């Protein structure tokens, strides 16, 4: 570790590592990633790692579609010799209310506009996609065959190793304890292993992002919310797609390894950095999922855990350069879909930092939107 870098990235999750990779690819190689534990130890390593393109806003649909294209060749793209575990088994979104079903149909129009190959599934065809599903109460369903799931650890390590190959440095078990700001400009970070100067500091700390930004005097509406997941023992393959319901707040999917992974949101979950798992969640998720997939009753849970969503008011990412500290950029607030849009987000941010053109307007993600009211409203979030 040197005393000074061009760019310091705080956070070794998928965002931090993918930004490091894209920056290096664009020639900004004097980059240090600082991770307080090990890579993926925060939200990335705890997430469901679904990749969904069936979004309800143009921006998210575009981010997801273009990110999916990156995931499809991530090993080659980063020069990684491992397997990122991409499995495009599709996403089956099921609507349990009329209103939800109407929204789905509107979403399909948006998805088709950006070129996503999603489609509505007639009720009597749902079982062709997921044979074990209980269709009681289902008002409608949509499917996108190229949605899927990847291995969050290997994807992150692919970016990290790719970045390292180009000269990026990564330090783990090192905590950023302070930010150095002078005359309205970021100058560096203080860490548990000494101070480091930097021209640009990127805050990719997920649920910790608001706390981190405060150290630079930047107040951001990002707050951590606990979400929980469980995984079963592996069994023979019985379900290809991810099945997801917004109304019932759950998603469930069988991984290529055979385990079934599922999670659900709790609308009453308080804001906190608590990452302890609860028995209430365990029972509730089991109940909700087995209502829709009764065949899963005999599957046995081997593990449960919790992580954070980094929530923003409109449940969409905030990419924001601090007014109080020029050069300090926060990339957070992904509200539960950071993993699946990380590849394209990293490209967007890196294009911005290297002065290159991008088809997306990065300023749409700034916190200014909460003042101007130009929110990035997304109707379809678990």
């Amino acid at each position, binding site marked *: 570790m040197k005393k000074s870098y061009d760019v310091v990235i705080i956070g070794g999750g998928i965002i931090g590592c993918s930004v490091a990779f894209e920056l290096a690819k664009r020639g900004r190689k004097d980059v240090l990633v600082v991770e307080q534990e090990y890579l993926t130890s925060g939200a990335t390593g705890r997430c469901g790692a679904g990749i969904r393109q069936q979004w309800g806003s143009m921006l998210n649909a575009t981010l997801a579609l273009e990110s999916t294209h990156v995931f499809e060749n991530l090993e080659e793209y980063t020069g990684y010799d491992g397997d990122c575990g991409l499995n495009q088994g599709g996403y089956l979104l099921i609507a349990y209310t009329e209103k939800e079903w109407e929204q789905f149909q509107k979403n399909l129009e948006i998805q088709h506009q950006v070129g996503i190959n999603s489609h509505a599934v007639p009720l009597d065809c749902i079982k062709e996609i997921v044979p074990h599903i209980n269709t009681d109460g289902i008002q409608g369903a949509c499917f996108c065959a190229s949605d899927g799931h990847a291995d969050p650890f290997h994807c992150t390590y692919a970016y990290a190793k790719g970045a390292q190959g180009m000269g990026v440095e990564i330090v783990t078990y090192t905590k950023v304890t302070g930010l150095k700001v002078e005359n309205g400009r970021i100058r560096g970070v203080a860490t548990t292993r000494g101070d480091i100067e930097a021209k640009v500091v990127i805050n990719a700390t997920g649920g910790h992002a608001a706390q981190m930004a405060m150290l630079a005097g930047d107040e951001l509406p990002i707050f951590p919310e606990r979400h929980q997941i469980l995984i079963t023992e592996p069994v023979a393959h019985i379900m290809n797609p991810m099945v997801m319901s917004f109304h019932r707040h759950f998603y469930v999917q069988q991984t290529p390894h055979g385990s079934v992974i599922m999670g659900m949101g709790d609308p009453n979950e308080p804001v906190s950095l608590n990452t*302890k*798992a*609860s*028995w209430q969640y*365990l*029972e509730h998720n089991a109940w909700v999922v087995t209502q829709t997939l009764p065949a899963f009753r005999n599957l046995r849970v081997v593990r449960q855990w919790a992580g954070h969503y980094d929530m923003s008011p409109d449940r969409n990412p905030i990419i924001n350069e601090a007014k109080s500290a020029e050069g300090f950029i926060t990339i957070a607030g992904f509200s539960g879909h950071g993993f699946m849009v990380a590849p394209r987000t990293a490209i967007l941010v890196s294009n911005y930092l290297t002065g290159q053109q991008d088809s997306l307007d990065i300023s749409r993600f700034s916190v200014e939107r909460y003042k101007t009211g130009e929110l990035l409203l997304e109707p379809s979030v678990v």
Partner: protein
Amino acid sequence: MKHIEVMVIGGGPAGLCAALAASSLGAKVLLVERDEIPGGQLVKQTHKFFGSEKQYAGDRGIHIGQMLLENVIAEQDIELWTDSTVLAIYEDGVVTVEHEGKHTKVKPDRLIIATGAAEKFLSFPGNDLPGVYGAGAVQTLMNVDGVKPAKRVLMVGAGNIGLIVSYQLKQAGVEIAAVIEGLPKIGGYLVHASKIQRAGIPVLTRHTILEAYGNGQVEGAIIASIDETWQPIPGTEQKIPCDAICLAVGLSPLTELAWQAGCAMAFVRELSGHVPVVDDLLESSRPGIYCAGDVSGIEEASAAMVEGRLAGLSAAFSLGYEANEAKALQQSAMEELAELRAGPMGQHIRDGINKVKLKRKIGNHAFENQTEKSGIVKDYSSDATNTCRAEIKTSLINDGIPTKEELDAIYPSDKRLTEGPIAIVECFQEIPCNPCVKACKRGAISMLRDINDVPVVDEELCNGCGLCISLCPGLAIFVVDKSYSGDMALIKLPFEYVPVPKSGHFVAGLDRAGRELGRFEVVRVTSGGDKNKTFTVSLAVPHDLVMEVRGIRIGEQAI
């Protein structure tokens, strides 16, 4: 949600004693055991226990387990859930249990974690071949399920488990190719090693397993001598044909629940792994959560029982039950533990406990306050450290066979030998055990300071009645009678195999290494009784062999 005052996780020796102790003070207890039959390892321990009367020494583990279980069942204040597994301890203090197939929630006021230990595994090529077993699994197959696990076994590890399971395999009619041990000395009690040596089972220290071989299942192992750095010495490889390899390479505390509960943990080599840090009263860093038995450090079952009792008392006491009585009972339990750990075999436990204590004082202030509140300040473990004890330094520690010097030192005078029968106690190691002292109604066997001392026979008081033979858990007592006849002397030996010889039979007499010394007549066989189950066999042997014959063999089988 079920509410209970004291919840005990694990129905092994520690858990059973914890439940009994807590209920004895008046607390309402829920005892949760994952197996159908509580008892933990006791259910398969067919050997006699060491320790003192207070820990039921001299009784077989299986009987102790049955007795504790009967007491638990008879106690109205203990609710017993068997076939029920604790799944998790959550941050809100809720403990979830799979009970009668249901996901059941329990909210205890106090929790005692007595989950015991799991067997350690070893890495060597072929370690996943069918036929590579944990010694505990083999013991379960034999002693619980009645299945003979193999024809010929290589035992890896000469700690107590390796030695005891080898003996039990032998009793079940299984051949033991050898017991190998990586350390330069036998880790288990030497009386166990002596017992298997005279049955013809070699104990090889400074040996390791290089690989298991076989096509689809174990057909043998390659072992070799190792040097001081644990590296195999080229040229010492030996092929050992066998159909099972038994790993008795130690236990690790089963601490998942303590980790989950957020108890402060520390890696303590002497306690065999990560253990929850506990205070004198066995309370962990999380107030209200106690840990007892192997989960907080691997020891003998006798210590686990006392720890269980102490944790049960502490939990009930902290709920306000029987304050005065409880303190005295806690005190005596702590004294028992100190005594059990006072010998050289308890050195590592004392060291381990001291280490953790030190760590706790630096690291966890809230916990220290908790200890202060209990009002007990005496540090028993350091008392024990001050006691100076002798460790065995001769070849006895390597092979379990006493040297001539060691034997000469304990033999009675020639004069006394010619006068009539007298007990010879071939017990050289300071282990916590004293049933022999209690066994002798004439008070001829004594110990100097405490139960860790080696017993001494008073040659004037001993009349050679032989009662002690079947009561010694180590099968280390023999009676020699040189006055038997002009030609022959009598040797009385303990015997725990089948078939039992009858008077008039001629059997092979074996020396301390299991070598045949000749065929001799059995002149008498007495039974130790239905519960004791150890027979005493009297053999007429020539005078010059009476100090050599220490085992017998019927037919080809060395026993």
